[in-house]
Structure formats: structure tokens, C-alpha cells
């Protein structure tokens, strides 16, 4: 009986070793950052430029001097590491322009997250004057009903997104999430549907999300929309960016890190990009190692057959 070839032994490699290496690759960069610069790709730059093109106004100005932006937060806790850094960066960007913000969600898992985001990023300043490592313009706490409105959650997937496109007020029974009648909120004067906003920002982790907004209301109403998605959804949404149906696309953690770089406030996305660097290297090493083992084994078997 001949001795087993090394490649055959490695074929039965205990995969828990790979899990261990991956765990180290994920954890170590969080404590020992590589600090490689996260440069934005063209899709991320396009999203930044869309926000940058909005008019700036003073804290007490009202639309139309101030831009009105609809932010749809369609995500769950699983996707927050990839998309939340973009959300925080884009909200800081919008607040620097004193844009009036309207929030909504079509995900039933999202409302507690949205409430937390509003407390942490809207009702409080993200980058007040004197923030370490930030030399951009300071933002300020937003006032409910004056600077922002949370419309809350509505279920109905594609149908409800269509309703946003034609009758936003009706879709939310003419009330904000806290019960305030929408006709008593001055910043919403003249807003009846999505096309009344200057920009639509889609923080989208899946279905329903950016794809449904493009298909049901975006193209039909020629809405200016930017989206952030998880890395796995990039190939789903990139064709819409190429056709101009999305005017910007922030793809995964790398995209979020790029947006943070553009806004000038590195955060969780930039830190996560380090994990992405090492994690991707581990996956590539696993692919190369697996193929070396595979070809060595195949060569050994062929030699065995010929000898």
C-alpha cells in the first residue's frame, strides 16, 4: 500500500483552520490598522457630486432656498457594517448644506435602527466644531418638524414605493411617524410625491430597496437618485448607474470608506476597509492554496496512471 500524497492529505484539510485564520484576519486590523488610504471609485464620486450639487442654505432658511432630500433607510442590522458608514457620511454632508431631510423605510426590521440613527445623527451633531481629525464645516442638531421629518415604516414593497411616487402623503395617511399631521409641517409645503424632492438617497440593503425605486418610480418620474448597497448587490445596481437611472452608487464597505474620505471624516467605513484588505487577502490565499493542492494532486494522479 503506497503512502498517501501530501495533496490528498491537504484535500481533507480541517476547515476550522481557515476559520481561525479568517477570524485573526478580521480582528487584528481592527486593533492594528494598516491605514491605507480609501480612495473613492467613480461611482462613489458621482454620488458625492450629486449631494455637492445641492444648494446650501442657512439654518433658518426654508425651501426652495434649501434642498429637500428624501432618505429611504431600507436595511437590517446585518447590513449595517457595510452601509451605516455611508449613511453617517452622507447625512453629515447633507447637514452641512442645511438640507431638509425626510426619512422613511420599507423594511419592517428597520424602524428601531432608524430611531437610533435619528437620535445619534440628526437630533445630535455628528461633527460639532472641534471634532478630532475633522476640519470640515461643523453640523448642528436638527429640529424635528423644522429641519427633518420621519415618516416611519410602510409595508407593501413595490406597491408602496409606487405610492411614494404618486402620493407620498397618502401613503403615510397624511401623518408623520409621531402622529403629527403632514400639512402642519412647513418644510413639507408643496411636497406630494417623490419628484418634489431635490434628491433621493437610498440606503438599501436588498429587496425592497434601490432596485425597486429605480424600476417603479425612478425611471418613470426621472428622479435624481443615489444609492448605497452591500457589496454583493453591486452587480445588481451597477447597470442602473451606467444608464443614469442612478446618478451615484456607493458599493459596499469600500464605497462607504471612499465617501467618508470625500466628506473628510474617516469613520467605521475607513476602519472596516482595513478588515476588507486583509479579509480579501485571506480569501485570495485560500483560492491560490486550494488550486496548488488541486493541481499537485491531479499531476500526481496522472503520473501514477502513466507509470
Amino acid at each position, binding site marked *: 500500500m503506497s503512502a498517501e500524497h501530501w495533496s490528498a492529505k491537504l484535500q481533507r*484539510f480541517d*476547515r476550522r483552520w*481557515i*476559520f481561525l*485564520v*479568517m*477570524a485573526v484576519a*478580521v480582528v487584528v486590523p481592527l486593533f492594528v490598522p*494598516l491605514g*491605507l*488610504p*480609501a*480612495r473613492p*471609485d*467613480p461611482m462613489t464620486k458621482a454620488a458625492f457630486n450629486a449631494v455637492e450639487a445641492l444648494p446650501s442654505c442657512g439654518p433658518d432658511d426654508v425651501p426652495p432656498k434649501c434642498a429637500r432630500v428624501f432618505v429611504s433607510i431600507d436595511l*437590517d*442590522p*446585518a447590513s*449595517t*457594517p457595510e452601509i451605516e458608514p455611508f449613511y453617517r457620511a452622507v447625512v453629515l454632508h447633507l447637514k452641512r448644506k442645511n438640507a431638509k431631510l425626510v426619512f422613511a423605510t420599507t423594511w*419592517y*426590521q428597520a*424602524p*428601531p435602527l432608524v*430611531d*437610533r440613527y435619528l437620535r445619534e445623527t440628526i437630533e445630535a451633531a455628528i461633527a460639532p466644531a472641534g471634532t478630532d481629525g475633522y476640519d470640515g464645516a461643523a453640523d448642528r442638531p436638527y429640529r424635528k418638524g423644522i429641519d427633518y421629518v420621519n415618516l416611519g415604516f410602510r*409595508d*407593501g*414593497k413595490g*406597491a*408602496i414605493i*409606487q*405610492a411614494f411616487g*404618486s*402620493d407620498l402623503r*397618502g*401613503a403615510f395617511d397624511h401623518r408623520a411617524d409621531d402622529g403629527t399631521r403632514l400639512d402642519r409641517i412647513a418644510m413639507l409645503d408643496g411636497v406630494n410625491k417623490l419628484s418634489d424632492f431635490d434628491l433621493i438617497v437610498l440606503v438599501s440593503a436588498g429587496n425592497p430597496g434601490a432596485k425597486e425605486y429605480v424600476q417603479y418610480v425612478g425611471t*418613470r418620474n426621472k428622479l435624481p437618485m443615489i444609492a448605497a448597497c452591500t457589496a454583493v448587490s*453591486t*452587480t*445588481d445596481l*451597477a*447597470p442602473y448607474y*451606467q444608464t443614469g437611472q442612478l446618478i451615484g452608487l456607493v458599493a*459596499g464597505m*469600500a464605497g462607504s*470608506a471612499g465617501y467618508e474620505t470625500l466628506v473628510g471624516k474617516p469613520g467605521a467605513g475607513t476602519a472596516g*476597509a482595513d478588515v*476588507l*484588505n486583509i*479579509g*480579501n487577502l485571506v*480569501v*485570495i490565499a*485560500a*483560492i491560490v*492554496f*486550494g*488550486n496548488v493542492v*488541486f493541481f499537485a494532486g491531479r499531476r500526481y494522479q496522472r503520473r501514477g496512471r502513466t507509470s
Partner: protein
Amino acid sequence: MKKTVPLFIGIAFGCFAVAEFYIPHHHVGALSNEFRQWAAILAASAFILGGVNILQVTWPQIRRREPDWRYKVVLLVSAAIMLLVGLPWHKLGSPAKTPTVERAATADAELAARGKAAITVVVDDDVTFMIAGKSAAGTGRPVVTEVDPGEVEVKLSRRVAGYRPLTAKVTVAAGERATVHGDPPMIWGRDGRVFVWIYDHIFSPANATMFALLAFFVASAAFRAFRARNVEAALLLAAAIFMMLGRAPLGRAISDVLPDVAQWLLDVPSNGGRRAIMMGAAIGAIATGLRVILGIERSHLGSDS
């Protein structure tokens, strides 16, 4: 009859949904909005049906002690707990909505001379307060804030979510001292403390853990399954390596070309293939939609049995 009526309802609404795209009349738009409201109501009622369905499916499995019946018990108990804590029980009682305000009997001459008034806030150290738009944290001891005379809004909130803020409008004259104290009450329901705690401390970590496991399975699959067995597989493998390097900052650190290669892969081969799939799927969806509207496809109506 059981099938014919739903079939005709489907045909009527299906035809209207298609026609509505081509008729830009406001009456048609208004009717369309009305139908979308119905759709939203139906979608919301599906949550109730879903709950009933879970009970119908899992309860018999628990009674018959089928394999993994213990997990079904966990499912039902968890669902029941979320239902109970998601109801706004606090509305049954009448918890305080405003803090208590006490005024000093005599005016402070020194304050009056400066044209100021003072509001003293006495709250626990886990409560924050906002006076005239300026916020501060409670310390457990009295905190005095000087304000301009007139109506001043005082808002007490707990640091953590799930408590109702207490708000009062206090009118103070020059030299007057007022003391505000209160304890923001816990609330129930979707914004309540228990619901938010379960969401933050159980649902969020569990949900994130499931997604995070992907990294480990992808690494393991990369070693075991991602093999260059033929030319197509080798191309796929090379594209994956370029994408992984090009989309991470490390790629640019290695070479400026890598991000451009990754972007080209996304813009040209990936988008081209994706577009072909999307258009094919769209044509398939149109065909299926027409079959449903014309009553040829009836599987959505269920079987006769």
C-alpha cells in the same frame, strides 16, 4: 365560482395596472393611488395572516413531538413575547407627561438686577435635559441654568431609548427661580424600552452574526470549491481575484492599474451579462403577467383539492 370571481378580479386589476401607465389623466391617477392604498393594507394584513399561519403550522408539530419541536417552541414563545412587548401597554395607565415645576416664593434681587431668571433641574444622572435649546446631562444633584425671562421650554429625556420625554413650558419673570424635576416614564410598544432592548441586544447581534458567518464560509469555499478546472473557471477565478484586490484599498497600494481593471470588469463584462439576465427576466415577467391577466396562468388561485 371559487376560482372564477378571483380570476376576473385579477384580470380587471391587472388590465387597469397596465393601462394606468399610458393614461395620464388625474382621475386615473387618483384611482391608481386608491388601489395602491388597498395593496398597502393587504400587505399589512399579511403580517396577521403570517402569525396565524405560523401557529397553524408549528403547533401540530409541537403536539406530535416531531424532530426539532423544541425550536418551534422557541419560535412561538419568541413571537408571543415580541407581540406582547410590542403593544403600547403604557396607554392603559396615565403616566406623567410633564415634569413637576416649583417656583420660589421670593424673587432673587441679584438675578433681577441682571435681567435674568434661573431654572434649577433636579434629575437622575441617567437623564439629560434641554433648557431653551441647550442640552446638558443630569448629575443627580441640582443643576442651575440662568435663562432670559419669558417662556422657556424644558425637556427631560433618558439617555437610553424607550422612555417618554417630559416637556414643560415654564414662564419665568426676571429674578424668578423655578425648580423642575421629573422622571421620564418607561413606555411599551415599538418605541418602548423592552422592545428596543430585545432589538438591540438579541435581534441585532443574532442578525449580524448570521451575515458575518458568510466571511468564514466564503473563505472555506474558496479553498475547497474555487478550482481552475477549465478555461471558464480560470477566467472566473482571475476576475474574482482582480475584483477582490481592486475593490479594496490594498489593490491601489499594490498597483494603480488594479482598481481600473476591477472597474472595467464591473462596467463591461459584469454589467453586460447582468443586463442580459435582467432583460431576459423582464421579458419572462411580462409573459407571466400576461398569462395571469388573461387567465391562462391559474396556479396562484390554488388547487381544486
